[in-house]
């Protein structure tokens, strides 16, 4: 390794110089891909030095983009000693204090963007816009220098910026001709693909001519089979497509289920031909996740089978992860805790051991472990896991994850009958969500808050009810089956505990939400909550004096409780 960075290679001819930097750039990217952040940074630092020496502006712009990509991917708690002293970012801004890693990332991105814009590197420009959008999604853009009372103290993320950046990045598709680096060359690739399609084209032409309808062929339509090879480079298409994927991710955060689905579908329909398999599988993963959340597990597993056929799995692939996630969720819902624990352990093994690498995977693994422990009613252990997870997230500045960890902590306290302790966590989670515009998570935090108030006694029922009403439009509109059912249950509970409410006067106010919740939970096979629903229903019918319905609800309650307590068919939990 040392030899590569030694000066002895330093060449004299310009074209070789360009290649040397590019090689370093590739090396850095590979290191980054395989999870060696330190090595990658070394390579990048060297590349920066060389390209600065040779005035290779475009390469420098690319390297800046690559470094920012690295910084955003790898969790690094502090940059001290990582980025070489030769290219210290802090110095350039002229501030005494070292910048936080996020601010360095922002500075790098902005600089790369500026250079790309100047040099008309449209692909890089688009990439930088996407990275900026990614940054804006998860971080608050603080001004680097803020003095005095007028210094803006906006502590919220700015979703409109995300949207703007994504729109700008889509321009790559129409501007591809002007990119200085990706000029299409006369290498005969078009004729090759054309010739390959020729036989198919003529045969299908015969079949189409026999159709009764007069069809028009649009030769440049990418949905048309014998469409002509497009001069748009694949890389450009991939960039344009990833803007849509990024949109879907953004909406996952902001909470708009139809938008997630639509953007993913647009990607899967329009960009499937050019997409890399990892990105396409990501799109399918998103679609399947939506199915699992909104249509239940059977539909999701059905689709998962198809997806597995389409993408032959390797262990770390997205599809495999998704499968484990789905299995874990289902095991938790069915009450198969042993299986859930097993899957959790598998999760833990998947991630790399290098600190800071695969940080998202690690977070998810411990989140799931805490949830499994919670389901097993081992509250103190669950809380310990969640607490350690919180410190990790805090260390790596993962504020968005923090919100969900806090919500989990609130949940743990609620289940362990410590509602008063849970309240501050729920409130903190809510305010995190507010500042990061995580609307759906905020709605569920509000719901948890309502549950906590409700647990404090019946005189808080009014307050809880108003909280539920606040969260309902969001949850009903964009929440999944589980969340919806939960909100309906809480709504019914609020009414039931309210001393001023009488069931006999307005039975529909309780029974309607309960029926709907029962319907949703049936699809989800969630025994614990279904039991709760039927319990509440039986109670209500008891109040109303309807004995037959009461007995029926009670029987269903018993059914679910026994299913929860005696998991009979635990083996088939791994089968789908």
């Amino acid at each position, binding site marked *: 390794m040392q030899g590569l960075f030694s000066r002895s290679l330093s060449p004299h001819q310009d074209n070789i110089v360009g290649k040397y930097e590019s090689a370093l750039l590739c090396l850095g990217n590979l290191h980054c891909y395989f999870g060696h952040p330190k090595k990658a940074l070394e390579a990048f630092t060297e590349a920066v030095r060389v390209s600065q020496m040779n005035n290779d502006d475009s390469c420098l712009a690319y390297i800046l983009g690559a470094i920012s990509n690295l910084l955003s991917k790898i969790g690094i708690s502090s940059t001290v000693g990582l980025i070489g002293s030769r290219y210290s970012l802090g110095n350039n801004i002229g501030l005494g204090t070292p910048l936080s890693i996020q601010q360095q990332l922002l500075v790098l991105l902005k600089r790369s963007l500026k250079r790309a814009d100047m040099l008309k590197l449209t692909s890089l420009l688009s990439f930088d816009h996407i990275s900026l959008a990614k940054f804006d999604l998860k971080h608050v853009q603080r001004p680097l220098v803020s003095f005095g009372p007028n210094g803006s103290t906006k502590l919220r993320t700015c*979703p*409109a910026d995300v949207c*703007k950046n994504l*729109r700008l990045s*889509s321009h790559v*598709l*129409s*501007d*591809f*001709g002007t990119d200085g680096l990706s*000029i*299409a*060359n*006369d290498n005969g690739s*078009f*004729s090759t693909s054309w010739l390959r399609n020729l036989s198919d084209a003529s045969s*299908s032409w015969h079949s189409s001519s026999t159709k009764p309808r*007069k*069809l*028009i*062929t*649009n*030769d*440049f*339509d*990418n*949905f*048309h*089979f014998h469409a*002509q*090879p*497009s*001069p*748009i480079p694949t890389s450009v298409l991939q960039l344009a497509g990833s803007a849509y994927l990024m949109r879907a991710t953004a909406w996952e955060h902001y909470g*708009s*289920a*139809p*938008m997630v*689905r*639509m*953007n993913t*579908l*647009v990607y*899967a*329909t*329009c960009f499937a031909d050019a997409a890399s398999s990892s990105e396409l599988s990501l799109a*399918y993963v998103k*679609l399947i996740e939506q*199915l699992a959340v909104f249509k239940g597990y059977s539909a999701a597993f059905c*689709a998962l089978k198809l997806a597995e056929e389409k993408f032959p799995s390797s262990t770390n692939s997205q599809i495999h992860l998704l499968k484990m996630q789905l299995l874990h969720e289902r095991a938790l819902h069915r009450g198969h805790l042993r299986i859930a624990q097993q899957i959790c352990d598998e999760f833990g093994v998947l991630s790399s051991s290098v600190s800071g690498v695969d940080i998202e995977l690690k977070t998810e693994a411990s989140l799931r472990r805490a949830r499994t422990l919670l389901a097993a009613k081992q509250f103190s252990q669950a809380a310990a896991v969640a607490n350690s997870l919180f410190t990790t997230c805090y260390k790596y500045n993962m504020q968005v994850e923090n919100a969900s960890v806090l919500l989990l902590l609130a949940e743990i306290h609620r289940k362990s009958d410590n509602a008063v302790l849970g309240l501050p966590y729920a409130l903190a989670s809510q305010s995190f969500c507010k500042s990061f515009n995580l*609307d759906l998570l905020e709605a569920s935090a509000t719901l948890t808050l309502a549950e906590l108030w409700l647990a404090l006694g019946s005189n808080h029922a009014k307050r809880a009810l*108003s909280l539920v*009403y*606040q969260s*309902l*439009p*969001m949850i009903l*509109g*964009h929440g999944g089956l589980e969340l919806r059912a939960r909100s309906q249950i809480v709504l019914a509970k609020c009414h039931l505990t309210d001393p001023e409410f009488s069931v006999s006067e307005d039975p529909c106010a309780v029974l*309607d939400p309960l029926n709907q919740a029962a319907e949703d939970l049936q699809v989800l096979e969630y025994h614990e909550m279904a039991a709760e629903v039927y319990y509440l229903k039986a109670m209500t019918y008891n109040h109303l004096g309807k004995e037959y319905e009461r007995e029926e609800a009670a029987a269903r309650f018993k059914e679910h409780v026994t299913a929860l307590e005696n998991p009979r068919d635990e083996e088939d939990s791994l089968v789908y």
Partner: protein
Amino acid sequence: MVTDDSKVLLHRFNWQRLWTISPGKCITSICWSPDGKIVALGTEDGFVLLHDVENGKMLRSIKSHDVAIICLNWAEDEPLSRTDKEDLLSYEDRTTRFFPPAPVMPRIGGLNSGDTGLADENEEAIQAFSSASCQRFNILCTGDKDGCICFSIFGIFPIGKININKVPIHVQSSGKRTSYRLQDVSISKVSLSRNLHQLVLLCSGKLINTDNLSLSNDLSVGVHCLHLDTSIFSNRKNELHQVSQQASSIQDLVEVVRASISMMSKQWSNAMNLFHEKFSALPSLLTAHGMESSSEDEFMSLLFGTHTSPALHQFLVSSLGEAGLKRIAKTIESAGRELRIVVSEHLQPAVEIISFRLAELRGLARWRSRFQNIGLDEKLMDGVTERVGMLVVQVERFSRVAATVLYLFQNFLSWVLKCVKILLSEPTDQVPSTNSELVVIFLKFLLDKDPIKQLLETDQIFEWDIDTAKHVEHLVVFGGFTDTKFLERSLAKQFSELEESLKEAFLMPFTTVSSQIHCQGLLPLYPVTSSDALSSTSTPASIAFYKDKDSQHNASSYSSTDYICFKIPDGSLNLRNFVAVIKDFCNSCSTSNTPSLSGFLLHIPVEYECVDLSLYKDNQVVLLLSGKSSSENAGRSWMVMLQTENLSFSQFSRTFPANYYNLQELEALELQLDTDYGKVRSVPHPLSTPLAVSASRGVACIFSSRRHALVYILDEDEDEDEDEGSEME
């Protein structure tokens, strides 16, 4: 603040003229928006025009009626009526948080910069309008000559329409229910109460008994007062507000999309026309040279260097020429740039925001217990959401095809330019390098086809292959679009389908709300003989709602009293020169324990004639009287302000139908101009009809027959007039 025939002039109080517009149609009614920022005009042919007060720009024009709009009433929800329930249901429109400002209509010729300053202003105005109007819930009601009443939230989103001719009126009289129906209705006045609970309207028409048709007689033709129950507006205020807010901005954006598509197709066809015009010379030249080959073959042979036929040579060098070629290149390039701008700045953002707003609406529709009874249907919304998703795919496809085609054009044209330079033996180093393969593709597929145009036309059906079909069907398992045939459609076709389903989805709330507006009561006011039935619409009348004094402390459930004030035309009911004031009509219809219907008649001294009247704040009536030409007071007028509380209301029964017109029972009071019922001012001019009273500013504006406008401050005790009117032409 003045209107003339088919011309609208707006003045400030200091008579500074703000603007003048002439819509070119006869304006039949006018009213202000509750916040005073918009003027609504009703025209003869049933349009409602909304104009910005600041600059007179037309913001919207909505065709809601078929015939002339007689009256407008724009009522806003009382801010006081907020209850704690409302706070709890606070709903945020997330769009502004997640998106940059919505795109506006693309302008044709957006490149000429001299014009932009003004146009930008206009855009801002529209933007401000759509955002400002969403602040508080308000409803514009419009009544027309044929008895239709339309309701539109914020004046832009139609939410209901009822035809008085078809509304059954049930009247409870002595335990027996009778239904009536009005025929040939012409609405003369509508007024919605401030809490949006009740609507009172005056209309003329024939009252018939639907149970027993023989009962109707001559007397049944007359002016009637109807009370409609519009409590759906107040009860479902929040829901309607949310829905209309989303829906009206969706409609705006749909217009943006439409304009974008039409503009793109115009721009592109212009460029293509030029291109084909120039290149069509080639085939004719070829036949002139007696050659059988097509122009495609000729270009091919030029590309592969075999030979250049004399025809092609002639075409390239003389008929096309370098300058002509450059012109084509420039035109196509600028059209392409326009296309690109329209797609990226207007079409894509508009479609994106539409889809987001639809997703929000779909979310609302899921809340069945709240939104189903205003007709927001989940299934329909789902359908629309699907359609908009397909539209996004189509837009993406279009932008891709456009990018490809433009690139090919650019490539081809620079190749031709290079050839021309070679033929003229000029240096070619200025011309950018070209890809010869792409030239082949261009010649083969673009020379006589136009894929961009295909996508912009509605009647095209595209062929698509089995692989794509499989792919799309495959996606259905993953939750993709269930309508797998959508790729057959063109962009424009997809858009029109979206529009259709949007219309269907928004019609649901419209019909649901319309069906929930019922007639609550009827009070025949006075009969009209058929001869003057036509003029009956012009008899002065005024309806107003005042808040009950005694219920003010109880803000959550305040009620309001309605006052109806009108002039009885001479001859009707055997009365001459009478003005009637009636109160508590609504309350008497709905409940029995509240103060029942009461009123009084006012006899105006014989030497005067009532020109116009209006209700003013704090239960006052402003009468505009003018001296009759026969008397010594000819040429002089009086403005009389009466405090109704000082006058004695007497109750009268609503026995029905024994006596149609009970007004005769009312006590007649003599109006003495020198009594202290109210204030009297004398105006030294003969006056003509429109009397405008503004309760908030406390002024009255009157028009003299000599085309003067005068503004009086009503509350001041001094008798002097404030502003001597400016001369109107």
